[in-house]
């Protein structure tokens, strides 16, 4: 039975470190490539004897260390200079000296973790608990106090009798032929394994759910959220009206409040005149407010092309003859108290801003309804082709 099994390799054990160095050196000189030395601890001088090239793992450390430094610096730069800039202690937004500690720590962290992971996975191909050598008498001995050498059958120069003869010539303590193990296959869909996975999934989700949705709302975790104080909008027995907040004294007027006295009047333009000059600043303000508050329904250029896609009826265009003939006061009045389905914007837009919007509407109207001669004049005056 055992003869039918495939040979993995032939191993020899030695009792003295000098002997194994000698053996390794000879095997290396004979040009074998698939062979290995197993020692219970690091033997100095074995690298030379085995003719191993220097380890290249240092490059991984260097590369990943630099990546760590770059990560730290760019993280600090992005967070503290771009995404969330705060002036702290009068330092600049990119306070390089203050970032050195974190940069250093991340350099070390990245270099260490990646070197070790690279060593274990790329260089050693770990985990390899299934390796042929495990559980052999050979492995038990090199784990304790013997020094072993294995020449694998995968080596192109491997011949059983020749290798055995070679190893015997070194005067080993013992020689052992190591066979491949019979492969044991574990089906993935084993009921035990599947049920273990399901149970783990249930436990993890239940734990997460309970922690985030129940535990964090229990005493004492919620003592910051629910405090014994009356907050606005809450009910209380303390006052007669049972409101948590107090109303201002009757007749109180908000700071800067001026009553609008033209409610219910259709055409107050006789009393209202535009106090703002159409200066660049005022027009810019008007443009900004128009785009914020008016353009969703009236369109960016006042064509009545709503972006709301029929959720509200489209307002009429402001470029019609009728609306172009409205006086400034009338437009101001409409913004202030609303018209038809359009509500009042008095709460959102201040007086000055309303007048600025009116000025901007005039600009839009002029831009869409100029005659050819007017355009020519503008081109002549500004030197720019405004028609485009």
């Amino acid at each position, binding site marked *: 039975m055992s003869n039918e099994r495939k040979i993995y390799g032939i191993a020899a054990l030695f009792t003295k470190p000098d002997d194994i160095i000698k053996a390794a050196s000879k095997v290396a000189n004979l040009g074998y490539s698939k062979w290995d030395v197993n020692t219970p601890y690091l033997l100095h*001088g*074995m690298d030379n004897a085995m003719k191993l090239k220097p380890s290249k793992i240092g490059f991984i450390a260097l590369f990943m260390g630099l990546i760590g430094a770059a990560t730290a610096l760019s993280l600090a730069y992005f*967070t503290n200079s771009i995404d969330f800039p705060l002036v702290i202690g009068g330092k600049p937004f990119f306070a390089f000296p203050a970032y050195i500690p974190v940069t250093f*720590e991340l350099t*070390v962290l990245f270099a260490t973790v990646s*070197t070790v992971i690279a060593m274990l996975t790329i260089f050693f191909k770990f985990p390899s608990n299934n390796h042929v050598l495990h559980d052999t008498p050979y492995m*038990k001995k090199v*784990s304790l*106090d013997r020094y072993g050498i294995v020449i694998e059958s995968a080596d192109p120069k491997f011949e059983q009798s020749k290798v055995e003869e070679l190893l015997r010539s070194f005067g080993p303590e013992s020689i052992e032929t190591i066979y491949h193990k019979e492969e044991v296959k574990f089906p993935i869909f084993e009921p035990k394994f599947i049920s273990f996975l399901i149970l783990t999934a249930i436990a993890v989700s239940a734990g997460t759910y309970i922690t985030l949705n129940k535990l964090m709302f229990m*005493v004492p975790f919620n003592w910051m959220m629910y405090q014994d104080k009356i907050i606005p909008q809450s009910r209380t027995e303390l006052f007669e009206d049972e409101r948590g907040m107090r109303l201002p004294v009757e007749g109180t007027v908000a700071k800067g409040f001026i009553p609008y006295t033209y409610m219910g009047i259709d055409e107050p333009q006789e009393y209202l005149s535009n106090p703002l000059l159409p200066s660049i600043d005022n027009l810019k303000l008007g443009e900004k407010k128009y785009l914020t508050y008016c353009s969703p329904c009236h369109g960016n250029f006042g064509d009545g092309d709503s972006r709301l896609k029929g959720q509200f009826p489209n307002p009429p265009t402001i470029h019609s003859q009728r609306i172009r003939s409205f006086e400034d006061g009338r437009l101001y009045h409409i913004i202030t108290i609303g018209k038809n389905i359009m509500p009042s914007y008095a709460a959102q837009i201040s007086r000055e801003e309303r007048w600025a919007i009116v000025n901007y509407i005039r600009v839009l109207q002029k831009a869409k309804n100029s005659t050819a001669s007017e355009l020519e004049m503008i081109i002549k005056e500004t030197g720019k082709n405004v028609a485009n």
Partner: protein
Amino acid sequence: MSVDYTIEPPVVHGRLSLAQIEEMVAKPLDTKPGKKFYIALSISGTFLMTGVVLLLITFYYGVGMWGNNQPVGWAFPIVNLVFWIGIGHAGTLISAILFLLRQKWRTGIARFAEAMTIFAVMCAALFPLIHVGRPWLAGYLMPYPNQHGMWVNFSSPLVWDVFAISTYFIVSLIFWYIGLIPDFATLRDRTTSKIKKTIYSLFSLGWRHSHRHWQHYEKTYTLLAGFATPLVLSVHTIISFDFAVSLVPGWHSTIFPPYFVAGAIFSGFAMVATVLILVRKIFDLQQIITLDHLEKMNKIILVTSMMVGLAYGTELFIAWYSGVTVEKFVFLNRAFGPYAWAYWIMISCNVLFPQLFWIRKIRRSIPIMMVIVILVNVGMWFERFVIIVVSLTRDFLPSSWGMYTPTLYDLGILLGSFGLFFTLVILFTKALPVISISEIKAVSDGAQPSYHRSEDYE
């Protein structure tokens, strides 16, 4: 008397064979623990439970249970943080710096010191977390994209702390684990129990003592030691920045980084010595952790003690030389103010008593050594107390001066941290080899080949 300094004394005493060394180190893992083990575990477990109960009460009622109050807001939690981080530094120093310096004697104590580093950093990391009062919100300390649209402040020493301590913990843990891999393989091959074999196999990752692996392994270990060396210096430097970057008199000082690092090594060696004296006795490891080891550690304690003493002197001198009134006052207040007793405990334990190590007989006498290293631990705890608490009690404005008295909760949680530390140490001695088996084999007599060039065989 002529001494030949070119010959190193043997690291392992008694000419043990490799198998005997392994047997000796693995014995606590193979045998059932004795009575002493359970007595020690129950004592440290009691301390740990005391700390746990007091902490839970603190979480329920809030940190008002402690003595922290204006003007002393940092008090015990930060004193304990700095103390425990300092304890941890000796482990990295022994395992990394002495490795780079090719000090063979480190092998006997390195594994233990590394384990103590990890446990000490765990104790240390506990304190800033509980100091914030709501440790379950500690996730906010890390920079991650969140719905608040906020980021941590990378110019803050407290954020540096987060990075320094977590990096230090991760790197120490990896360094420790890398050292353990060959030992797990050895244990896997010697054990007869099936459960143990499964566990050891899992952690050994399939290590097979191949020299093709040893080669990369040594390179990686050297690299890691190279990273850990500046890391250990940076960690305590950053801890000292918590104070040095502020403007509080007694804290705002450029001497802090080297002063704190020296103090950390000092206290760390004292703690390693304290525990090693007990362990070598309990587990009969006198031949591997020899009196020579302890003597060498005592010499380092003596050197660092004088470095710390020099720092105390320099601080005093600079306070006088600077001519700053508050700075001068702070140091007079330390030495002669209401907390003068703490200052003089610090001076005597850290500077005066270690001077006894000049005498060879005392360096090699275990009972006296034990007393001195415990005193050093006490002294170093009081050093942090003096720096943190005493500076805060009396700063610029006399109207905002105050006194600080710890409550029983403060003291109980400190005791609990010792309980955590010693419980972990005791469990470690039973669960893992306290000495690196593969490294100690490598430095025993006749373990290395006599010098040959490979050409000799051609």
